[in-house]
């Protein structure tokens, strides 16, 4: 990790440690911690990390922003930091300035479509949009007869059916019915919904990897405290081997997510097979790791980890929820499988070895 990434990640780490301690916020059912946390993140310029100065952001590099997301995952942050970063990044692709406040992206699933009408208005329905209810603006990707556009939309002009995701965060259905955007511009050449989904997938992969690191950490600590059959459960070989497997899942998720992030941070364009392999693989492998890893973390904790009082669910349920955003692992596996089949058997190894 370069020094600048370290500094940005450390800034984020400090804010989370001060204002989003898992124990404290787990007992704050009203969510009073959210406003001070968002203020601190905004003051540090983190939500608009990927927006250049002249478009209203703090102009951090892609790599710096990715390092923040990994840290955010370690704290299972339940404010729309990742979503606002992604929305700012999307708007920046079309050189649209980012407003202040919470944002999210529409659509958040590869299956949903927003279309541009003849009058320039936007219509469509997007399910499973994270934090839509909390967002002041949406960054929207839409297709029309002139190709793909990117738009900034006032969330108050859309119909939002409130829902709750696995992790307890807002996960809503957004309906646009001839909504006039604040701004709309053409997307750059080669940028389409797949590009947005791949980027969103890498964002979620980094968060999952971070949450697995936290789950490993608290599971190891718990196993070194909890006594059963007159010894610490960490001394039982069966428990040790489960935790070793959790470490393996954490390692796989970390490697897959940081590799994909590094690829995107250094890519000249995002519409090529190497980016596709990296980003799709990260989402697939991190989602698999979320399932296996959170299962082990819960098994190590026993009944206490199943309680709402314990912090484990903050990480385990979010990791599971993040699998669904921007295309699930089974969706990306089908797409990656098609790509591989299309290239042919003899081009599989050259693709893998190109990374």
């Amino acid at each position: 990790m370069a020094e600048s990434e370290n500094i940005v990640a450390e800034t984020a780490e400090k804010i989370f440690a001060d204002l989003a301690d898992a124990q404290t916020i787990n007992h704050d059912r009203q969510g009073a911690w959210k406003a001070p946390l968002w203020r601190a993140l905004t003051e540090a310029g983190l939500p608009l990390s990927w927006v250049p100065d002249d478009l209203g952001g703090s102009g951090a590099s892609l790599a710096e922003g990715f390092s923040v997301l990994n840290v955010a995952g370690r704290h299972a942050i339940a404010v729309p930091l990742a979503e606002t970063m992604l929305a700012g990044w999307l708007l920046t692709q079309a050189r649209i300035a980012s407003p202040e406040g919470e944002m999210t992206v529409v659509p958040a699933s590869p299956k949903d479509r927003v279309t541009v009408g003849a009058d320039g208005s936007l219509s469509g329905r997007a399910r499973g949009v994270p934090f839509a209810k909390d967002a002041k603006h949406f960054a929207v990707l839409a297709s029309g007869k002139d190709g793909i556009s990117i738009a900034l939309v006032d969330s108050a002009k859309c119909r939002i059916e409130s829902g709750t995701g696995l992790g307890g965060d807002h996960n809503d259905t957004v309906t646009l019915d001839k909504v006039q955007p604040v701004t709309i511009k053409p997307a750059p050449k080669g940028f389409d919904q797949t590009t947005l989904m791949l980027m969103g997938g890498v964002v979620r992969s980094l968060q999952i990897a971070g949450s697995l690191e936290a789950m490993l950490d608290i599971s190891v600590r718990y196993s070194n405290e909890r006594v059963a059959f007159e010894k610490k459960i960490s001394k039982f070989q069966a428990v040790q081997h489960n935790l070793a497997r959790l470490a393996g899942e954490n390692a796989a998720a970390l490697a897959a997510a940081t590799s994909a992030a590094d690829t995107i941070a250094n890519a000249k364009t995002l519409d090529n097979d190497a980016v596709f392999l990296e980003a799709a693989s990260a989402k697939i492998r991190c989602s698999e790791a979320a399932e296996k890893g959170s299962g082990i973390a819960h098994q190590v904790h026993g009944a206490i980890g199943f309680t709402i009082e314990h912090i484990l669910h903050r990480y385990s349920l979010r990791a599971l929820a993040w699998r669904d955003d921007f295309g699930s692992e089974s969706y990306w596996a089908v797409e990656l499988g098609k790509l591989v089949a299309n290239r042919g058997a003899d081009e599989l190894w050259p693709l893998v070895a190109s990374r």
Partner: protein
Amino acid sequence: MTAALRFDPIRLPEKCEQLRKEVRAFLAEEIAAGTFDPHAPNREDNDAPEFSRRVGAKGWLGMTWPKKYGGQERSFLERYVVTEEMRVANAPTRRFFVADRQSGPVLLKYAPEHIKMDILPRICRGEVCFAIGMSEPNSGSDLFAAKTRATKTDGGYLINGTKIWTSSAHIADYMIAIFRTSPPTKENRRHGLTQFLVKMKQPGIQVNPIGQITGQFEFNEVVFTDYFVPDDHVLGEVDGAWKQATSELAYERSGPERFLETYYVLTELVRAVGNNPDTRSAEGIGRLVAQVHTMRRMSVSVAGMLQAGKEPVVEASIVKDIGTVWEQQLPHRVRDLAAFVEETATNRETLEKQLDFAIKTAPKLTIQGGTTEVLRGIIARGLGLR
């Protein structure tokens, strides 16, 4: 954080790509000349002495070692490229692989100069084959229970006892083995074992091949009867082999051979499925490709850390743990998907033959070179659980 695992996204440097092209071109020539069939990993004998010499002539053996011993002083990452290309092509690497990966580095570190000057250049030329003498009839994973004795005598040691599951002993010119020179102490049960260089094909050594469930005869029982080893063949500290073993494990455990052993069935499945897979085949292939890509990125990351002089022992053990479990499951997952391959697929018979062999190979993958259980113990220690 208790764990702090590191898997930095290390990339192979640009110069590796030129090397990769050279290796691929070389292997294509060898295949065209009939040296080996890349679609038949189940060939009767993987020993190819002439091929080994040609690989040596290319400068691809001992390539990280000092030039004065015949090496090329190239990086671990360049060696990584050669290793993975050979593995994916199913090249017959048995004769040189052990010497190149681990015996040579042990000699470099512990052998006296005249032995290094004698043997290392021959490894680099692909002329000599090494075996590793660790397991015994009553000590496998519990390495430090080894009983084969090395008794001090005039000018050397007399060896008596039996090593077992010794891969390639039947073709090997040398073995690096651990023998008991002293009993273990109360304080340290690992004390008392010494590492030796053993010259094979001598009186006093009897090699008995052992048939494997794959039908191959790859490993052996090796019986020593008053076999003499001279003093200068002691490698490292007498009674102190346990100190030497652990730090080298990272090299042995994290390479591409730890997840690519059955990779060929995936390639063949993609060929059988064709360009327009149904949803089930596409998803199955996509997951397997995502998994192998991730394994490789982890493995390259460890190689990069080794090149940078770090000792990522826990990370390397994780790579071998999940890598070998993956390559063990791979033929079974491919079998699931192969059930839907069209009868008309032209490579159907090849795929079936490969699956048959890979499924028979699979059980050994999580046993050889450190079992899953041993690896998870090492990882658990790294996590602070022991």
